[in-house]
């Protein structure tokens, strides 16, 4: 237990890095995922094909392999960024595919009448998607979206293997340094992760009730 208390500050730094990685990647991945979902339902066949290809390729690739391409291949293209930025890129690119699928299932769950009404008053595809369909779609997929955020939070741990000193990296470091207190150190880090994931799950339930569309 002392090992955890003595290193509370180190833990806090790791926790903050994990949190920052989670928040930045969530924002980017959600934006990219929404764009991909819009592409996949658009009237332009080229965009539909591009969106589908992206999702199929990324969904079947392990996140670790995506990290490999970000960390080892981008520098070959003279793109030199910090490990944190590489991690943000890898995590965002990977989870955008899952956000896309969640948003798309939301779009499919909006009643046909809504889109028909939007079209009949003369809205274009972009307008009807932006003003009518997406606002309702997001409300129906709050739980799946939050579930992807929870998965993303957990997956940021992989950044530990690629130079980012976040919670998991801190945990292994401390565990290697204090072999007599390994259990307490892993326990402390587990509590940190559960604090993030279980809170998100709890918030998801409350948010879902608040934004639910009465149908």
């Amino acid at each position, binding site marked *: 237990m002392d090992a955890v208390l003595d290193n509370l500050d180190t833990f806090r730094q790791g926790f903050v890095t994990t949190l920052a990685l989670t928040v930045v990647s969530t924002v980017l991945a959600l934006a990219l995922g929404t764009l991909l979902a819009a592409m996949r339902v658009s009237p332009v066949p080229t965009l539909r094909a591009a969106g589908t290809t992206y999702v199929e390729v990324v969904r079947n690739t392990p996140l670790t392999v995506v990290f490999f391409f970000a960390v*080892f*291949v981008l520098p070959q293209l003279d793109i030199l960024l910090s490990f944190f930025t590489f991690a943000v890129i890898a995590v965002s690119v990977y989870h955008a595919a899952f956000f896309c699928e969640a948003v798309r299932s939301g779009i499919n769950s909006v009643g046909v009448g*809504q889109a028909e009404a939007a079209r009949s008053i003369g809205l274009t595809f972009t307008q009807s998607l932006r003003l009518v369909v997406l606002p309702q779609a997001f409300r129906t997929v709050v739980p799946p979206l939050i579930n992807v955020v929870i*998965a993303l939070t957990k997956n940021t741990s992989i950044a530990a293997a690629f130079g980012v000193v976040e919670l998991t990296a801190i945990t292994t470091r401390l565990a290697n340094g204090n072999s007599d207190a390994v259990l307490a150190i892993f326990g402390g880090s587990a509590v940190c992760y*559960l604090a993030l994931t*279980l809170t998100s799950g709890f918030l998801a339930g409350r948010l879902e009730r608040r934004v639910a569309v009465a149908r």
Partner: protein
Amino acid sequence: MSEAVLYDATGPRGRRRILIGSVAGVVLVVLVLGVAVARLAAKGVLEGERWQILTRGDLLELLGRGLVATLRAAALAMVLAMAVGGLLAVARLSRRRWLAVPAGAWVELFRGLPLLLVILFLFLGLPAAGVTISTFWALVGGLTLYNSAVIGEIFRAGVLSLPKGQTEAAYAVGLRRGQTLRLILLPQAVRLMLPALISQGVTLLKDTSLGFVIAYAELLRTGRNAVEFLGGPYSIPVYTAIAALYIAVNASLSFLARWLDRRTRRRYGRTVQPSAADEAA
């Protein structure tokens, strides 16, 4: 909602605009790729010889061994996770609280923790407690703990999705609760959850790549070792080959899952849907 209701059928002008836009978009993408290729070519990364490495027997044999190690860990972890997951589902469905509550806690705990943390705990934590464990078993153990929680929930959802009449009919002919579950509910539930189980198998297969972190010699680790031996310029061909291998195996499994899903839904009207989140993990 069928997606076609979002827009009118495109007319001749729209089709022309789409064509022009598509061509412009493709040209733009080709330009960006061209710049990337030019940069790589300037470094000599794209010389034919770099890609010819992929035809070398010893590299292919190495990657083949890595793939076998990946599939071996995935298959064993899947079997174990299904066994533990089955027990968890039965425990959570049980009326006995001393069974249902711990099983629920197990599920919440292992679904809420990063898989990598669990694997690292088995790998670093257990030796500290005096139990040595090989990288293979640390990976398989971590995958089993995590996936048993997810698969347990798939099993439970499958059983709960069956019509109530099945249980009532089983009780009416005098079966006990355990018998009802074993003889009536599970055989029907398995059909409904088979697609979800296969998608979870894809996730599990992807997660074996975490073995890389604890230096278990799976596909990714053997590839990394090869690149460290050959040198950085060979990273793109080797990693592309690895990604292609993963995508080939996983895409065929995903295809199988979708085909089964469609077939099951046609026959039984429903299936257990895997959540996007469990697939992302």
